[in-house]
């Protein structure tokens, strides 16, 4: 059943059970959010998304308030704007504001919303925390002096990865994100998937591998498929000056249907080999126990000749092929085609089955 409501003077219809956030966005309103994440359980805690229902005493968090028939909503009333400014100022009051060196610069919710509402400094500045976590792990930087306590990392860790490595510790203003007993990630069930970095709306979590090589907001992003395993996760190679400087992920299910942005430690952090000087750059042919560089034509001709010779002498069934889990489905399809159609053998298998 559809319900009717008015948002910023515009009448719209939404299905029963729709949250105000969605209804407002449908009506064209731009609602700022920190804790809301469409893939995670609702938290309703940052209070950035508040809107004003006419006749209600308090503002409501639009992400967790169901739209009701006949509601009249204002999304930028003076109360709403004041509340959002105060929320931002309260966040800023404890924030290590170092945008110039921050990995998140340019795609940070806190930065963007402060810009939007003209919040340059906080009226509530006072004591700041010292929550930076000197975590010795090789992958993830945890600078909780930039944390806004949206708990998206906690929910992503539990709901997407299932690791439950982190949670909120302590209460009130002392509440902070921690592993059990506030230890290091390495001593926790953390699998270094980096889903927490992916969902963090600010620069509190970032990749140590990519640090300092280019701010993700400024890098070119090349969508591709991870080559590590047969799952085939989509991710974006961050490219700067023709060099891969990082991996981020695209959470849009249309672009990233297999993984919706989620990756594992290899995909998210294991890309620096690409620029390694130890990589092979040409085929090698072994002669007299020594490898020598060769051209692709020469190498392929040699391989084809040898396969043909074996086939002639021993028949096609004497040849088999193991393809790789690290190539795509399409490439695996071509591999079996080559075996069955060109070579004539059914002896084709795949390393993931061994």
């Amino acid at each position, binding site marked *: 059943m559809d319900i009717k409501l008015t948002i910023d003077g515009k009448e719209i219809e939404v299905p029963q059970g729709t949250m105000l956030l969605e209804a407002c966005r449908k009506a064209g309103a731009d609602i700022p959010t920190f804790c809301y994440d469409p893939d995670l359980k609702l938290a309703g805690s940052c209070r950035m998304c508040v809107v004003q229902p006419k006749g209600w005493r*308090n503002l409501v968090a639009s992400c967790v308030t169901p739209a009701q028939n006949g509601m009249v909503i204002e999304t930028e009333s003076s109360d709403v704007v004041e*509340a959002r400014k105060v929320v931002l100022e309260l966040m800023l009051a404890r924030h290590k504001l170092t945008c110039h060196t921050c990995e998140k610069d340019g795609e940070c919710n806190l930065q963007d919303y402060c810009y939007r509402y003209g919040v340059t400094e906080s009226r509530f500045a006072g004591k700041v925390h010292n929550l930076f976590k000197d975590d010795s792990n090789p992958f993830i930087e945890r600078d909780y002096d930039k944390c806004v306590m949206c708990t998206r990392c906690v929910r992503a860790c539990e709901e997407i990865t299932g690791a439950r490595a982190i949670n909120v510790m302590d*209460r009130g203003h002392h509440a902070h994100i921690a592993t059990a007993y506030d230890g290091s990630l390495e001593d926790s069930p953390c699998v270094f998937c980096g889903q927490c970095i992916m969902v963090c709306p600010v620069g509190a979590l970032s990749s140590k591998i990519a640090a300092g090589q280019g701010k993700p907001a400024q890098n070119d992003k090349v969508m591709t498929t991870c080559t590590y395993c047969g799952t085939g996760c989509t991710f974006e190679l961050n490219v700067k000056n023709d060099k891969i400087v990082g991996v981020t992920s695209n959470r849009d299910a249309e672009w990233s249907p297999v993984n919706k942005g989620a990756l594992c430690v290899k995909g998210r952090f294991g890309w620096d080999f690409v620029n390694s000087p130890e990589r092979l750059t040409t085929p090698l042919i072994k002669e007299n126990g020594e490898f020598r560089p060769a051209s692709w034509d020469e190498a392929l001709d040699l391989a084809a000749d040898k396969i043909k010779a074996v086939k002639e002498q021993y028949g096609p069934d004497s040849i088999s092929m193991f393809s790789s889990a690290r190539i795509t489905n399409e490439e695996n399809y071509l591999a079996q085609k080559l075996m069955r159609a060109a070579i004539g053998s059914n002896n084709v298998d795949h390393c993931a089955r061994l």
Partner: protein
Amino acid sequence: MTQEYRVLLEHADKINPESAADYIQVGGYKGLEKARSMNPKDLTEEVKKSGLRGRGGAGFNAGMKWSFVPQYPETKYVVCNFDEGEPGTYKDRIICQKNAQALLEGMAICGHAIGSNNGYIYCRGEYPFVVEMLKKAIGNAKESGALGEFNIEVRMGAGAYVCGEETALIESIEGHRGEPRFKPPFPGVEGLWRMPTVVNNVETFACLPYIMTNGADWFAGIGAKSYPGTKVLTLTGDIENPTYFEVPTDYLLRDVIYELGGGVKGGKKLKAVQVGGTSGAFIPSQNLDTPIDFDSMGAIGAALGSGAVFVMDESRDIVDIINRIAKFFEHESCGQCTPCREGTFRCKEIMERINTGRGSLKDIENLKVLARIMQKASLCGLGQAAPIPITSTLEHFEYEYLRKLV
């Protein structure tokens, strides 16, 4: 009319609260018997008609709350809020210690109304001795057969004030961090273990046996029309008789202090009185002629809350008291939502500054802005109510702030 009117506490100290037999001798468990002879819908209607409203602070009509519980799910819960975390409040403890069986009977009556045999009592962590007593009282009532199929388990809190908020309480029973849930869904639809749950205060439940035995009309005729019945109050602070009283709800605040309370201690003049616990408004002496009921208190910008009455004499330093209250909320915020997590901390900072003579007019201005947004945008009642002592004293006692500024 300056007398106490005892209903819940009529037999206080004359019966053993652990003993169902003692209670039955003074008319106990008759109300449950009558409730069980009615169909649940009529029972709920009867409670609605009595006008009984929640005694835990929010003042919601009890029967109305029950009527939101859907019929179809098999598992439902009756939860008693005995967290009693408001400083200065101990009326629920008194009700349990004097008349525990009435609480158990009330819970069973609610159980019949919503179709549940599963009761929980969530008891304040600082009351281990009451837990022991309650367990014996439950054991005794079960043995006597008075409760029938209705079961009650006691769970203990661990000292967090926020766990008195009904959804944080539910999270705590489930074994999670004591953090309030956003609402809706309300507990009546999705409560304990996501099943329909009625959460009521100790005093609310304890009224039910008397409503059932004497009738809804009898109850509706006591005290204030819109918030009928009696209320157990606890007096603390600068007062001659710092003790508890049960009074009809149209009782005047002035009489609470000057008749039952025996007046301000040492014959001093009254400066302010805070009703309803730490989050209550500070009421100046010119507003004393107000009945204590929910709506009358609301009309003067205060709240009956838990029924704690904290009296301050003329020598008290309002700003210093508010500073302490700010510390309390900074300590008790669960830390979930931004306005309260950060706001309670900054309130405390600013109050400390003002209290130690380092504050400025700008601080007061910022305090007002912050208070307004905490009230309007916090997730739960804690953050919404935490600034009330500040705003009410800025309204009535601003000069005390101003004289402390640099």
